[in-house]
Structures are given as structure tokens and as C-alpha cells.
């Protein structure tokens, strides 16, 4: 038994369970745990099985183009990486953006939060709580009554509506196209919902599919296209011309009205469907409050959504900034991402090398030098690993730490920081949810808490979209149509050497890009993405990362069916594609679960 500095007893004597790959996430990840005789997880090992090398392919490129590359590293949050990138370049070169650009960027970022949270909950995470096969057994009339009880204002609630959806589902399942719902452990007792709740939630899975198509049109309008919207160092690439009718690409009243109606759709769905679902589903699972991990100990948020352009001081951000360590919610530390002593990445347990063991490097001085080597206690071979040796290097993810502490990032981290800082909106939302579920504050520190925080944040971000939309329209009415500052577009206006940092709160958590520019070209570029924080392996001191911590002490109903592991890992909305790189032997898309 080993006690980690961050307070976890690791016991590797029990049976080892390997889940590889973890499905319904972005990218590739492997997880190994040891369970004791009672089926309780007593050791957890999270391995990013893809190599990450974005940094190295940007060397020598034009910094004004970096956003277009960073947009390609992820299949989900393209826009967030692009925003972080242009912020980093603007910071390095001292470029300020106009007020309209700030509002438009905020709307796009908030829109992405809402889109990502809804898609995550309904399409990547709901199936960890909801059983679509069980939904076939539901009584449509009882489902209708349940719907009207949990959300009286949602218009789609008739028995006929649920009967139609149920028939559609049945047809889909019976045609052998279980497709989207394959690989489920549908008879596992870890599923707690009655059939009617399963049918209601599965119906919303379909409603959310339709809705998400509409939500992203905001990115098409402001970014010119989606997927892969356009971004611009110095502002946003869309001109504003409210008097035009058909000018290509220009933002006119017609387009603004479209944005406004999409924002209304988001807010209606959050209010009528998403939040009521989380409360209804949460009610059946409030006895299952595992998975809190580091959320009650150490959380980190960079903050985002500045009121004014170019002002990232903590009092001016709608999504809060701060760090909490050792569970002391009474003290929220400010975070300075430029300070070489604060954010550092360690690689003692990662497949990289720095030269000096035990060294932590600030991202501006970051090095991405791969070194793949396996520990002496590995079981299997290099090409067929049966069991990883976590005492050695064991992941393609680096281990970022804040002042040496392993941190959780993401919606729950943001909400814990916000709550501790007395952020009024966040406090009201959290207190209201706790009352609705009739659970104490500590329930926040759980898998369910992570999932609920995301829903609350979707609702909050939806409202903020409206705020910044109104602000944008008012500013345009006041005669300001400026969307970009191109005074420093030409590299001849740049200093010979410069460095900068861009920060955002991505849907998955704190995201930073650190850039060094020399002679007009990128000299060094480092991304520390949310899943690098959450999915990090152990560090030099032996602290386990957020994924690992979240699995500790969770009882499993059936150790060969990793429902609980997937549920908790999915609650982070892991996005391994940008934190690492791909590998998939023989194209195996099916998860294998091995118990040893």
C-alpha cells in the first residue's frame, strides 16, 4: 500500500481490470484499475495512448496561421483552440481587439460551451445513466405524465409523441442497427432509471440531435463556415454592415436576428429539457455519489469571457479564475499563467524526456521530446501490453501541475472556484440544484456533481450569450462597426522576439497556448489542454491525476463491466485527441475489458 502526497491509498494487490480503449470520448485512452475482494477500486492508472506533437509542427510557421493548425487537432472544440491561439499571438505582439470582436468571440465561445455541454450530456454521457433498451418497456402515457411533472413548460410531452419515438427506437433496434447504442451493458444493475425515465431521456437524446444542428449556426454566421470557422489575429474575420442585405459574409440585421433566435433556442432547451433531465435523472442516482476525486481537494480555472476586450483581470471575467488547493475553499489563489513557478509540466511518468529527472518546465520553456520506454514490471510485450507498469513511464500525456499540485479542471472546477469566490450566479444555481435534489453541499464533489455543473454552466452560458448579443447590437447601434485591428498585421511592425500566452475556459476546462515568436516566425508553441490536466499520469512526487483520483474507492457492480469507470471518466468529457496522438491497433473500435 502506498499513500500518495495528495492523499490516496494505492493498493495494487487486487485483480487488475484493463479498459482499452475507453469509448465515447474524443481520442484514445486506456484505463487500468485494481479492485479489492469487494469490487472496490483501490488503484487507478490512466494512460493517454496517443502521441501529441502539435507543438513541433508549428515551428517556423507564421504565427498568424497557428489558429488554423490548432483547429485541426481536435474533432470537437475547434473554435476554442483557434480562439486560444489568436489570443496567444495577440498577447505576444501587443495587439488589442475592438469591442465588437470581444463580444463576438464571447458569443462564439459561450455558444460552443452550450453546444458541447448538451452534446456531451445527451450523446456521449447520457448512456452511462440512461438505458435506451429499457426505454422500449416504458408506458408512453406514464412517460408523458413524468415529462409534464418534471418540466411543465416543455411542449413535447403527449403520450402519442412518446409512443412515436418508442416505435422509431424499436424499429431501429429491431433492424439490427443498434449502432449508436451498441457496446452497452444494458442489464447491469448500475442502471437505476425506471423505463419511463429512460424513454424520456432517450427522446431528448433525439431532440438534442436536432437542436445541436441549429446551435452551431452561430459559428457559421460569425466564422463564415462550420466546421472549421475562420478566425483572425486582431479581431474577428466577419465585417459588420447592418444596412447591407446580401453582402457576402457581412453581418447584417438578418444574420443578427438569426443569432438571436438561436440563443433563444439554447435557453429554452436548457430551461425546459437539460436542467429538468439532470434533476430527474440525478434524483435516481443521488445515492451514488462516487467519483469526486480531486474536485474536493485541488481545482483550477483560468477564467474566461471578459467584459471588456483585452482585460483578463479576475474581476472582469464572467467565468471565474482561481486555484483551490488541499480542500481549503476558504482561500482562492489567483492564477498567473506567466509565472514560471505556477504552471509546470512534468514527464517522469510520461513518454517524454527533459534531460533532468524530476524537472518541471513552464510551457514557455516546454520541450516535447518523445521517449517511449516501458517499465520492468510491464506484463506483455511492446506491441501487446497486457498490464502497464505505472511505476515507470506510462502515458503520452504530460503531468501539468499548479505549484506542484495535481488539479482538476472543467465545469465542476469552475463551479467550485466560483462558489468559493462567492460568484452570485453560480451560488444561486448551485444552491437551487442542491435544494431540488435535497442533497448536502458535499454532493457536489462527485461524478454526478461534475455532470450537474456542466448543465448549470450550459444554462449560465446561454444567458451570457444573450447579454453579449445585446451588448454587440447596442454597440453597433451606437455607430461602432469595427471588428478587427490590423495595425500590427504586418510582421515588420513586430518586435524581433516576443512571447505570449492565450487562455480560455474550453468546455472541458482550462486551456492555455504559450507561444514564442522570433523573426516573424513561431519559435516555440506549447498547448496545455484540459485533458492534459485531468488525464495526467503521476508526477515526480507520486501525486495521481484527476482521472485516476476520481476512480479511487468506487465500488463496481460487476468488475468485468466497467459501467462505473466509464461513467466517471465520461463525466470529465475527456478529449484525448488534442492532449495526445492516435494509435489503434488493427482498427479495433470495440472496447476490450480484461480482468486479470
Amino acid at each position, binding site marked *: 500500500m502506498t499513500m500518495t502526497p495528495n492523499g490516496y491509498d494505492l493498493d495494487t494487490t487486487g485483480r487488475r481490470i484493463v479498459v482499452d480503449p475507453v469509448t465515447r470520448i474524443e481520442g484514445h485512452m486506456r484505463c487500468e484499475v485494481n479492485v479489492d475482494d469487494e469490487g472496490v477500486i483501490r488503484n487507478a492508472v490512466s494512460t493517454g495512448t496517443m502521441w501529441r*506533437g502539435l507543438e*513541433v509542427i508549428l515551428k517556423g510557421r507564421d504565427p498568424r496561421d497557428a489558429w488554423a493548425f490548432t483547429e*485541426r487537432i481536435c*474533432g470537437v472544440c475547434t473554435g476554442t483552440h483557434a480562439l486560444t491561439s489568436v489570443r496567444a499571438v495577440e498577447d505576444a505582439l501587443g495587439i488589442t481587439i475592438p469591442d465588437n470582436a470581444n463580444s463576438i468571440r464571447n458569443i462564439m465561445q459561450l455558444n460552443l460551451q452550450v453546444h458541447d455541454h448538451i452534446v456531451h450530456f445527451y450523446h456521449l454521457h447520457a448512456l452511462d445513466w440512461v438505458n435506451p433498451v429499457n426505454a422500449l418497456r416504458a408506458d408512453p402515457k406514464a412517460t408523458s405524465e413524468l415529462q409534464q411533472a418534471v418540466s411543465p413548460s416543455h411542449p413535447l410531452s403527449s403520450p402519442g409523441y412518446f409512443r412515436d419515438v418508442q416505435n422509431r427506437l424499436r424499429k431501429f433496434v429491431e433492424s439490427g*442497427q443498434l*449502432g*449508436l447504442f451498441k457496446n452497452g451493458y444494458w442489464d447491469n444493475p448500475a442502471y437505476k432509471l425506471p423505463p419511463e425515465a429512460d424513454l424520456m431521456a432517450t427522446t431528448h437524446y433525439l431532440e438534442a440531435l436536432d437542436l445541436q444542428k441549429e446551435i452551431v449556426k452561430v459559428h457559421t454566421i460569425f466564422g463564415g463556415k462550420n466546421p472549421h470557422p475562420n478566425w483572425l489575429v486582431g479581431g474577428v474575420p466577419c465585417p459588420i454592415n447592418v444596412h447591407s442585405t446580401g453582402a457576402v459574409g457581412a453581418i447584417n440585421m438578418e444574420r443578427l436576428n438569426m443569432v438571436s433566435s438561436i440563443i433563444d433556442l439554447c435557453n429554452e432547451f436548457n430551461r425546459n429539457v437539460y436542467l429538468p433531465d439532470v434533476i430527474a435523472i440525478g434524483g435516481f442516482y443521488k445515492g451514488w455519489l462516487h467519483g469526486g476525486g480531486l474536485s474536493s481537494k485541488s481545482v483550477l480555472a483560468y477564467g474566461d469571457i471578459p467584459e471588456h476586450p483585452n482585460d483578463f483581470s479576475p474581476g472582469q471575467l464572467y467565468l471565474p479564475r482561481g486555484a483551490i488547493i488541499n480542500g481549503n475553499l476558504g482561500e482562492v489563489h489567483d492564477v498567473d499563467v506567466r509565472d514560471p513557478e505556477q504552471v509546470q509540466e512534468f514527464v517522469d511518468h510520461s513518454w517524454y524526456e527533459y534531460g533532468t529527472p524530476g524537472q518541471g518546465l513552464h510551457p514557455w520553456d516546454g520541450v516535447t521530446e518523445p521517449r517511449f520506454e516501458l517499465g520492468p514490471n510491464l506484463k506483455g510485450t511492446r506491441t501487446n501490453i497486457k498490464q502497464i507498469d505505472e511505476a515507470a513511464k506510462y502515458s503520452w500525456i504530460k503531468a501539468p501541475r499548479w505549484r506542484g499540485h495535481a488539479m482538476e479542471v472543467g465545469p465542476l472546477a469552475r463551479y467550485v472556484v466560483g462558489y468559493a469566490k462567492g460568484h452570485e450566479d453560480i451560488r444561486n444555481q448551485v444552491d437551487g440544484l442542491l435544494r431540488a435534489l435535497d442533497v448536502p453541499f458535499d454532493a457536489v464533489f462527485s461524478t454526478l456533481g461534475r455532470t450537474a455543473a456542466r448543465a448549470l454552466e450550459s444554462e449560465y452560458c446561454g444567458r451570457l450569450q444573450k447579454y453579449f448579443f445585446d451588448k454587440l447590437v447596442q454597440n453597433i447601434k451606437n455607430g461602432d462597426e469595427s471588428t478587427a485591428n490590423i495595425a500590427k498585421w504586418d510582421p515588420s511592425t513586430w518586435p524581433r522576439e516576443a512571447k505570449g500566452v492565450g487562455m480560455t475556459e474550453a468546455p472541458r476546462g482550462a486551456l492555455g497556448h504559450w507561444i514564442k515568436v522570433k523573426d516573424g516566425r513561431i519559435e516555440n508553441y506549447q498547448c496545455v489542454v484540459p485533458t492534459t490536466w485531468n488525464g495526467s499520469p503521476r508526477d515526480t512526487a507520486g501525486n495521481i491525476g484527476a482521472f485516476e483520483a476520481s476512480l479511487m474507492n468506487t465500488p463496481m457492480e460487476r468488475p468485468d463491466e466497467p459501467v462505473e469507470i466509464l461513467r466517471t471518466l465520461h463525466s470529465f468529457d475527456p478529449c484525448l485527441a488534442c492532449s495526445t496522438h492516435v494509435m489503434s491497433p488493427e482498427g479495433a473500435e470495440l472496447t476490450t475489458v480484461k480482468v486479470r
Partner: protein
Amino acid sequence: MPPRVLILGIGNVLWADEGFGVRCVERLAARWSFPDCVTLLDGGTQGLYLLPFLEDADRLIVFDAVDYGLAPGMLKIVEDDAVPAFMGARKMSLHQTGFQDVIATAQLMGYCPERLLLIGCQPEELEDYGGGLRDVVAARIDPAIAVALERLRGWGIEARAGQGDERLLADAAIRQDAYEAGRPSEEAACRVGDARFLPGRG
């Protein structure tokens, strides 16, 4: 009314031959223009974001690098019901929600295009981050485009020589020429991936 056709290139341009599909639509747009019923789209590695485009299409042509275990550079044409199964066989998918799931979702929602044509190319090299297309794969872009043009003709849609619609394609900074020409040297930027999955290099 001519059928509405979506011509989609998918894959990750940052992973060598994975970029085949995206490069195909780029070249298609550079050389050919189409009537308004045809939409050219760089789908990248996006999943659900592609649904609205599928909903607005009667027929779908997809270019992609797919592993069929053939000789590198060989084209494989797959149609209609066979398409999802072949997409599922792809060796590299940056997505767990890959394109197979996008099609399944469109089917579930009742708006999957009625005709599907997958023009796949067997990649030679995928494990080269930041790399471009290998010669043997790059040489198959024109033949792949020819397959698409012929099929479009069969559907009553004629392409005209000349610059086409590039609005839904990649930013100029990562189009094939700029991307491949601007690559840092091997000394400056390590290119190898995970040794376990680089046969012969481990």
C-alpha cells in the same frame, strides 16, 4: 430538380495520408465548378457538426483514406449500404464518434442521403505527424476525382473546368501546398509516433 449532392472530404490533414479526403475536395474545387445543387465540404475529423450537411443532401460522395489492407494508393469504391461497414473498418479514426456514427445518426433521424458513394484510398503512411501525402497516395487524387465526376455525370450533373466554390474548404494556411512546403525539418521537429504501432521501427 437535380439531386442535391454533398461532396465531402474527411480525415485529419495533420496525419500524412489521413489528409487524402480533404485534399481531394480541395483539388476538386480548384479545378472544377458545379451547379448550385452541389456542395463541397472539408469535413475534417468532425462528427455531429456534419449532420446538417447530410440533412440537406439527397446523395453523398465521400473521399477518405481508409484501410482495406490493399496495396498503398489503391482506390476502393464502395456504395450505399456497404459504406458504413467500410468506414467502420478504418484503421485510424480520431473519433470514437467517427463518420460511421454520423451515418447511423442520420439514419436514426431519418435524413440520411439516399445514395452513398465512398471513394477510399489505401494509405501508405499515417504515423507521420505534420507530414503531407505520400507520392503514391497524392497520385491518386486525380483518379479519385475522375470517379466522382463520372458518377456526377451519371446523376445528370456536369462539372465545368475552372475555379469552383472554396468557401467550405480549409483556410489557405493549411491547404496542401502551404502546409507541406512550410513543414519544419526533421531535426527541428520529431516525427515519430508511438513505437508500439510503428511496425519495424520499434
